């Protein structure tokens, strides 16, 4: 071979190498695109079970694919054999991580189930679904958490899968919030209402009990009250047992124990609910007793109880300066006051409803939404005076005697907001009441039906509130 031929052969070899390298890179780019950029199909299967609710929030249906990391020492032929046994195929090897394979399931089974099959194999270090990633708009990367409470599927406010004709996703994104926190026993929420059935099996573990080292409540007029389980302002006694059911319902929305195989889950799975009774068996009470109960909360806060929220699912059109003053005093003690906007279908900007319409910085006035993201037909509204909206129609929660009932009203929307506030505090215990209120207002999903109807124009999103 002469000298010129050698140069020609070397040049040809270099060209071939470059072409091969470029083809390989093209293939890698193609595979990267397949694994990282997805187009969500227009038609999705409508989830109905709790499991499907979770799946619907992790990924789209119909394109199963998993990422499996095999343990070191497992050969490629062994991997191919394992995948073939499940009627899967290795779509791509991720060269930079030894043993990591992108696997396509040829049966189109759901990706979580396929990942679970691989996880169970002794040869596998980990396996996970290939989550959808959408360009420009990356959804919450948290994996939703579902409680095993048996009636959770009926709690559309927390996870709306379209059950009973509702709109899928018209919920507070509780399952995503729970990936971050399910609450804390360090947070105390006062339920100022008809009392609470503190012996309800789905509530009893989340009830506040006066700490052993704290003196019983003392009031100059009432004397000493043994407030072991809370406070009854109607007769100034120690027993806040609910005789109506309304307060028990509100308490369950805030903090029915989660993951306990019973009934429902609250917005908080764990929290402390301080029961305060000022409404009688009929569901009504006096302004004076409401004031006494709020005063009790403030005194307990001063005595060291970490009570940061008062949930007030009640009201009237009558303004009381004394009630406003005591709510302001609660503000000065760093206590949020969440109040029902009212159920008269009226505009609170023109016809105020109290206490929700008091112009005090800690008051959060709450409107009610139905399961289709529509303002509830009964709900009051107000572009200037109603802060925020939350689900409040056909809400399942705890009732007297270990029962559960569906109820509607801004009464039911209010504890949803109180519950989200408690979740925020579980993550940010030192957050001031001003910041807490601002956080709630900044944590909504815009809703068309609320435009011009509330200050925020949105439905509370618990997951956003924890960002």
């Amino acid at each position: 071979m002469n000298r010129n031929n050698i140069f020609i052969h070397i040049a040809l070899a270099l060209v071939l190498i470059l072409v091969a390298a470029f083809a390989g890179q093209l293939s890698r780019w193609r595979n990267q695109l397949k694994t990282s950029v997805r187009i969500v199909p227009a038609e999705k299967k409508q989830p109905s079970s709790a499991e499907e609710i979770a799946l619907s929030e992790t990924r789209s249906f119909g394109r199963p694919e998993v990422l499996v990391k095999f343990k070191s020492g497992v050969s490629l032929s062994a991997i191919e054999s394992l995948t073939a046994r499940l009627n899967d195929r290795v779509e791509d090897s991720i060269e930079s991580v030894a043993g990591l394979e992108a696997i396509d399931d040829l049966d189109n089974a759901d990706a979580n189930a396929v990942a679970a099959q691989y996880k169970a194999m002794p040869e596998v270090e980990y396996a996970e679904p290939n989550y959808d990633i959408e360009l420009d708009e990356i959804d919450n990367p948290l994996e939703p958490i579902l409680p095993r409470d048996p009636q959770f599927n009926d709690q559309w406010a927390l996870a709306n899968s379209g059950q009973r004709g509702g709109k899928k996703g018209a919920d507070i994104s509780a399952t995503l919030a729970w990936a971050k926190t399910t609450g804390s026993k360090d947070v105390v929420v006062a339920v100022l209402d008809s009392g609470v059935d503190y012996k309800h099996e789905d509530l009893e573990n989340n009830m506040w009990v006066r700490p052993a080292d704290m003196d019983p409540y003392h009031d100059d007029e009432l004397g000493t009250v043994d407030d072991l389980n809370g406070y009854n302002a109607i007769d100034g006694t120690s027993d806040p047992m609910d005789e109506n059911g309304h307060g028990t319902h509100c308490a369950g929305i805030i903090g029915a124990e989660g993951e306990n195989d019973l009934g429902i889950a609250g917005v908080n799975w764990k929290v402390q609910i301080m029961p305060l009774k000022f409404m009688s068996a009929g569901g009504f009470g006096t302004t004076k007793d409401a004031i006494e109960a709020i005063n009790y909360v403030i005194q307990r806060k001063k005595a060291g109880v970490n009570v940061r929220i008062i949930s007030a699912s009640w009201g009237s059109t009558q303004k009381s300066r004394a009630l406003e003053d005591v709510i302001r005093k609660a503000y000065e003690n760093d206590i949020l006051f969440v109040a029902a906007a009212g159920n008269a279908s009226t505009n609170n900007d023109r016809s105020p409803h109290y206490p929700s319409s008091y112009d005090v910085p800690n008051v959060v006035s709450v409107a009610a939404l139905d399961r289709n993201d529509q303002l509830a037909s009964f709900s009051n509204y107000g572009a200037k005076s109603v802060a925020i909206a939350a689900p409040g129609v056909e809400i399942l929660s705890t009732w007297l005697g270990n029962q559960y009932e569906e109820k509607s009203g801004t009464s039911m929307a209010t504890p949803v907001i109180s519950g989200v506030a408690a979740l925020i505090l579980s993550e940010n215990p030192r957050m001031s009441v001003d910041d807490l209120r601002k956080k709630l207002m900044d944590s909504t999903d815009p809703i068309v039906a609320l435009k011009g109807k509330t200050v925020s124009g949105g439905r509370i999103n618990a997951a956003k509130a924890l960002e």
Partner: protein
Amino acid sequence: MSINKDGAVQNARRDLAKRLNIDPADVKERSVEDSDFPDMSLGAAEDGEMSGQMITPGWRIRLEANGQTFEYRADKNQVRLYKFKGKNYRI
């Protein structure tokens, strides 16, 4: 003690007769309808009264006496007179 529809109507008739100082037989029952009220005071709160903001099922009772119609509202827990001379009363 739980009140039923008939009991609520009887309570309302007695109350109106007493207020108008007439014989209960002169109070006529014009209509009794099932109704959902906006709150737990049945949309008829007394002065200084607060109530749970929960939709509450009950009965709207319309009685007639002295040529006038009077509205009572009731549920299993209570009977109320609605806007009698501009005021609400829980009876």
